[in-house]
C-alpha cells in the first residue's frame, strides 16, 4: 500500500516540475510560429528568475515578483528582437549571445540574494477534493502558477488557430514575403511574438526561483531553457503536445529524485543525467521523421527578413 501512497505526491511533484518547462516552451512555440528561432530561452529564464526573486524579497509581493519577472524576460528578449529583426543579425548566434549574457547578468543581479529563503506560493486546498487519494493533491492541490501554465495551453492554441492575429502570425512564419506583400507588418508581429516568448520564459524562470525551489542560485535553470527548446520540436509546434512533453519531462525529473528512495543504488550524478539524456532521446525519436518535421515546422523559421530587399 505504501506504493499507492507515494503516487499522489509523485504526480503532484511532476506537474510542478513541468510548469517552468511549459511556460518557456509555450512562449518559444509562439516565437517559432512567427518564424523566429530564439535560442536564448535559458538566458531569459535566468533573468526572469533572478528579477522575480529579488523583487519578491524586497516587496514581499509574489504577484509583483511574477509581473516583474515577465517584464524582465520580455526586456531581455527585446535585445534579441532588435538585433535579429532590425539589425539582421544571425538568429542562432544572437540566441546563443542572449543565453551567455543572461547567465552573466543574472549572476550579477543575484549576487546579493544568494542564500535568502522565500516562502513559495500557497497551495490550493479544497476540502474533500484535495484529500482524494492519488490524484487529489496533483489536480486540486497546486499553486496558482501551475494552473496558469496549464490554462495558457488552450489560450495559446485558441490564439494561434482561432483568431485573426494568430492567423497573421502563422502566415508571417510560413511565408514572410507573401505576408509582407499583403500589407502585414512582419517585423512588428515578430517583435511582439519575441516579447511574448521572453515574458513566458521569465515566468518559467521565476516559478523556479520563487516557488519550485524558492531561492536564488547561479545558473539555477540548469538547462531547462534548452529542454524547452527541444520540447517545441518534440511538440511539432502544437501547444497541447508541448504540455504532454512538459509533463513527461516533469516525470523524468521527479523519477530521478525518487529512484534512490525506492532502494535502487545508482550514483546521484548518473540519475541527474536522465533529463538531458531523455531530451536527446525524444529529439531523436521525433526528428527521424523528416517529413513530419518539414510539414509542421514554420517554413520561414530562422530566416531573416528585410522589408526593402
Amino acid at each position, binding site marked *: 500500500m505504501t506504493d499507492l501512497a507515494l503516487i499522489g505526491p509523485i504526480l503532484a511533484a511532476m506537474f510542478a516540475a513541468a510548469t517552468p518547462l511549459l511556460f518557456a516552451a509555450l512562449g518559444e512555440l509562439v516565437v517559432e510560429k512567427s518564424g523566429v528561432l530564439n535560442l536564448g530561452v535559458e538566458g531569459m529564464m535566468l533573468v526572469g528568475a533572478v528579477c522575480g526573486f529579488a523583487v519578491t524579497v524586497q516587496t514581499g509581493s509574489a504577484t509583483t515578483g511574477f509581473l516583474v519577472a515577465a517584464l524582465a524576460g520580455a526586456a531581455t528578449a527585446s535585445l534579441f528582437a532588435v538585433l535579429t529583426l532590425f539589425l539582421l543579425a544571425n538568429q542562432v*548566434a544572437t540566441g546563443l549571445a542572449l543565453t*551567455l549574457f543572461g547567465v552573466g547578468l543574472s549572476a550579477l543581479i543575484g*549576487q546579493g540574494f544568494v542564500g535568502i529563503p522565500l516562502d513559495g506560493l500557497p497551495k490550493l486546498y479544497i476540502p474533500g477534493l484535495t484529500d482524494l487519494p492519488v490524484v487529489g493533491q496533483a489536480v486540486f492541490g497546486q499553486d496558482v502558477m501551475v494552473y496558469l501554465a496549464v490554462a495558457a495551453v488552450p489560450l495559446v492554441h485558441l490564439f494561434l488557430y482561432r483568431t485573426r492575429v494568430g492567423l497573421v502570425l502563422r502566415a508571417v512564419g510560413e511565408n514572410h514575403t507573401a505576408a509582407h506583400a499583403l500589407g502585414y507588418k512582419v517585423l512588428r508581429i515578430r517583435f511582439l511574438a519575441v516579447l511574448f516568448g521572453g515574458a513566458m520564459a521569465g515566468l518559467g524562470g521565476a516559478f523556479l526561483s520563487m516557488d519550485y525551489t524558492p531561492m536564488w542560485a547561479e545558473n539555477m535553470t540548469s538547462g531547462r531553457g534548452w529542454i524547452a527548446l527541444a520540447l517545441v520540436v518534440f511538440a511539432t509546434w502544437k501547444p497541447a503536445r508541448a504540455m504532454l512533453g512538459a509533463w513527461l519531462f516533469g516525470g523524468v525529473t521527479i523519477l530521478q529524485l525518487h529512484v534512490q528512495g525506492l532502494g535502487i543504488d545508482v*550514483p546521484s550524478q548518473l540519475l541527474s543525467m536522465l533529463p538531458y539524456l531523455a531530451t536527446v532521446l525524444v*529529439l531523436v525519436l521525433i*526528428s527521424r521523421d523528416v517529413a513530419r518535421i518539414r510539414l509542421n515546422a514554420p517554413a520561414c523559421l530562422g530566416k531573416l527578413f528585410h522589408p526593402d530587399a
Partner: protein
Amino acid sequence: MSFIRLEPRGQASKTMVYVTPLLAVALTLLSGFILFMAMGFDPLKALYAFFVAPLTSVRGLGELVVKATPLVLCAVGLAIGFRANVWNIGAEGQLTLGAITGGGLALAFYGEGGWWLLPLMVIGGAIGGAAWAAVPAYLRLRFNASEILTSLMLNYVALLLLNYLVHGPYRDPDGFAFPESRLFEADATLPILWAGTRVHLGALFALLAVAGGWLLIARTFIGFQIKVIGLTPAAAGYAGFDQKRIVWLTLLLSGALAGIAGMGEIAGPIGQITASISPGYGYTAIIVAFLGRLHPVGILLAALLMALSFIGGEAAQIAMGLPKAITGVFQGMLLFFLLASDVLIRYRVRFGARRAVA
C-alpha cells in the same frame, strides 16, 4: 518611411569586417563604464583594474596565455564547423571528456609513467573529445536531430560524469574523501614554457591549431568545400560535395581540439582532476570564434581579449571587490555589440526619409 534606414550594399564591405570587432570592443568598454558608474564604482579605476592592471606583470601576461590556450583550441575547431553551418555548442562537454580520458590515462599509469605518457594523454584527450562530438554528428546525420540541442545536452551529461568520477573511481585514495584525483606526477604534467609563469606546452598546441586551421580552410580542397557548404548549401549539392563527410569531419575535429584543451587544463595549470576544470571555456569559445571572424588568426587575438576578461574579472574582484559575474556580462555584451555592428558589413545606414524616385 522611417527616419533611419538600412540600405543594402552592392558588395559586403571588406573594411567593416575588420572595423566592427573594434567597434564592438569600444561599445563594450563604454557600457562597462556606465555599468561600473551605476554600481557605484569609480569607472576609470574599475576599467583599469579590469583591463590594464593584469597586463602590467609577467605573471599576469603568463596567465593571459594560460587562459587563452583552451579558448584558442576550442574556438578554432568551432569556427571551422560554424563555417559549414555545423553548430557545435558542445565544446564545454568535449573539453570535459578530454580531461576525463586524458586524465584517466594519467591515473591509470600512476607510478609507472615515462616519456610516452604525455603523448598518450594528448591522443587520449583528443579521442575522448572527438567521441563526445561524434554523438551529435551521428544523431544529426542518421536521425536529423539538431546538433545544437544534442551537443548542448551532452555538456550537462559530461559535467555530471566528471562529477561522478571525482567522487568515485577517480578520487584520490589518500585524499580524505575530497572530490579530487591524485596530483599528477611529472610524467603526466605538461612542461612549463615560460619560467615564472604557468604557461605550458598547451600554448604551443594552440598555435599549431591556429596554423593548421588556417591551412585547412585557406589551402585545402576540404576547406573550400566547408566554405561553399556554409555559404550556399545548394551549390555544394550541385558540385557533388559530400556534406555528410563535412559534418563528420568538422564535429570530430572540433571535438578533438576541445578534448586536447581539456587534457591541457588538467595536465597543465590544474595538475589533477577536480570537479570544476573550466570556467566556461567551451561557451566563451563561441564568442571567441565569432569575434575572431571565424578566422584562426582573428581567433588568436579574440582569445587573448576574452582571456583578459577572465583574469580581469578575478583581478578586479581582488583589487576593488567587483563581483566576478561581471566577466560574463562583459562577454555577453561584447558578442551582442559585435552581432549588432555586423549589420554595417552588408548594409549602409541612411538618415532621412527615402526620396521618391521620379
